[in-house]
């Protein structure tokens, strides 16, 4: 009953098009994350759902009702702003009550609801303070509290964690996940932080360049990115892209080779692949420093020791850089000649336009 449907939603500011025919369906109770680089239109899309920005074209439906022409307060959504926008001259209690007062909620009920929300968020002791007397994390809770008391159909959060320091960010992220679990409301969360997206989302909407690149669960987006952009944007370190010299058909699957290197057998079906200008995509964890002398050759440029693993930046003979992984305890030094074993089973292939070709999904995978 609080599902959100976007149908071919477009937005232009004057002559500048910011979003181009965006469509999606968000189920009731989902935690959706809009992920994408700066300026790709995440906030604009969120603000259109909130009613703070007009829709140039297309339709927005909320709980089965078309809302794109309604003012924000009639849509039944609540928004948490990046800078929280707590009214500075009002106490926390008044900040949380303001919306209810405006719609004439009885006093007793307002007090009840504010107290309930404050208890849930553990900000009861802050109710009589002004926003200036709160820490960043506390302000953040109040901003969420202000949204909760209105009991909205959907919560819209625009980079709500970006003003917190690293430690608090992680903790608040966790609490947000717990909160979502508890109140089971639909949430849309905007971020350009992929860790936030991966950890919070039931589904991620990856956006780039006015459009949606992919909608999928965090693992889908990570393991089976739809495009080269998604593959490169999600995951750290970024996925390796290596130009393919030639491909051959080995038992129905593509076997690829780079310039002057032994072939790699992938699980990507050969049929349907274009034959030219292909790129191999492989994550660092599937490119291991080989212990037995097999694999492709490279020379080590940089070594990054992360503790539990080591990232090895290698230069291949064709001058492509490839990030490989080694164990946490690794003797590798810059300048070493190494061999890298690529796990063809999880490799993917991109065509010239950036479309991804994957291995056939196994059951349950």
């Amino acid at each position, binding site marked *: 009953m609080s599902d959100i449907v976007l149908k071919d939603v477009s937005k232009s500011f004057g002559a500048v098009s910011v979003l181009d025919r965006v469509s999606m369906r968000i189920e009731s109770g989902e935690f959706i994350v809009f992920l994408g680089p700066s300026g790709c239109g995440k906030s604009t899309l969120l603000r259109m759902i*909130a*009613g*703070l920005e007009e829709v140039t074209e297309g339709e927005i439906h909320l709980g089965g009702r078309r809302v794109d022409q309604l*003012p*924000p*307060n009639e849509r039944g*959504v*609540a*928004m948490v*702003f990046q*800078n929280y*926008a707590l*009214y*500075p*001259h*009002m106490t926390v209690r008044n900040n949380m009550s*303001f*919306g209810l007062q*405006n*719609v004439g909620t009885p006093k007793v009920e307002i007090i009840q609801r504010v107290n309930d929300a404050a208890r849930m968020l553990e900000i009861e002791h802050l109710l009589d303070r*002004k926003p*200036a*007397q709160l820490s960043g994390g506390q302000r953040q809770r109040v901003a969420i509290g*202000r949204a909760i008391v*209105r009991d909205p159909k959907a919560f819209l959060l625009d980079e709500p964690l970006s003003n917190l320091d690293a430690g608090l960010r992680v903790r608040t992220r966790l609490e947000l996940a717990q909160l979502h679990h508890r109140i089971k409301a639909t949430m849309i969360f905007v971020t350009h932080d992929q860790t936030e997206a991966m950890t919070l989302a039931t589904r991620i909407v990856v956006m780039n360049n006015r459009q949606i690149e992919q909608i999928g669960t965090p693992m889908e987006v990570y393991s089976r990115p739809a495009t080269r952009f998604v593959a490169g944007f999600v995951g750290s370190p970024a996925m390796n892209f290596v130009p393919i010299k030639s491909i051959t058909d080995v038992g129905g699957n593509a076997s690829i080779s780079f310039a002057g290197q032994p072939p790699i057998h992938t699980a990507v079906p050969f049929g349907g692949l274009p034959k030219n200008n292909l790129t191999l995509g492989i994550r660092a964890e599937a490119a291991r420093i080989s212990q037995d002398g097999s694999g492709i050759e490279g020379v080590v440029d940089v070594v990054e020791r992360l503790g539990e693993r080591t990232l090895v930046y290698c230069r291949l003979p064709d001058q492509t850089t490839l990030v490989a992984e080694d164990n946490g305890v690794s003797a590798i030094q810059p300048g070493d000649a190494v061999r890298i074993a690529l796990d063809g089973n999880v490799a993917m292939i991109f065509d010239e336009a950036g479309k991804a070709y994957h291995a056939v999904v196994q059951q349950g995978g």
Partner: protein
Amino acid sequence: MSAVESQSADAKAATSSARSRAIKSLDIGGLILTLITVIFAVLWAFPIYWGMVTSLKPESQVISDTVEFLPRTWSFEAYWHVMVNTMIGRWYVNSLVTSLGVTAITLVTSALTAYALSQLRFPGRTVLWFLILASFMVPLTALIVNHFILMAQLSLINTWMGVILPQLIHPVVIIVYKNFFDSVPKEYREAAKMDSASEWRIFSRIYLPMNWGVTTALSIVIFIGAWNNFLWPFLAVSRPEMMNVAVGITQVNDAFGVQYARELAGAMMAAMLVAVLYLIFQRRVTQAIMLSAGVKG
């Protein structure tokens, strides 16, 4: 608000520590500057001092051959005279009513106009804004004859309303308010909209309270300006019982010939309220003058 207060507390702490440092390393240049400042302050304050001293002398000692910096005999006769023989009480009431009226009405209308210009989109908005800016260029005195004729036609001569109405033209107040409303981050407005607040609620519960500092500063300046205003209240009123203090004290002179002590006693009493107000709200007044000066500059 409290952020602002704590900031200014910090600033105060900073200046006081800066002051103690300055005292330790007092140099010749600073000394000379201080001396010059003191001389100017004395020059500036002397007429006020002289007026006060004179008002406390008996009329017979006012004109004498020697310069007397203090009265030979202290006398409140002049004050007594002004209080008993003139309508100064009534004039005070008139001044209070008209000045408060001017202040209140100017603030309410200007704040509302500024809010509309700053936050609402309506046809004619730009034209209205330019009209207000243009009216800023017309000195009020240039319109004073028109004002008189208009008030006469409305039969408002010798009434409080007649004194108040032409003094309500304060484009600079609208401009200051608009600047402040413009600089409120738009998220507050958006948050309020999501909170179902009407425009009136956004204005009265968010924008106005977020700018209380401006309102108090402006109100003091408008009030003092209206209280000290002479020309229009002088023209708009001929009946002594409707006069403002500033106008009324000239009557002390008229009725009794040149009586310096009495005249100055009247002036002192007229200025008293403003002086006290100024002392109490000194910081706000300076702030307000800087606000409107910033706009004018």
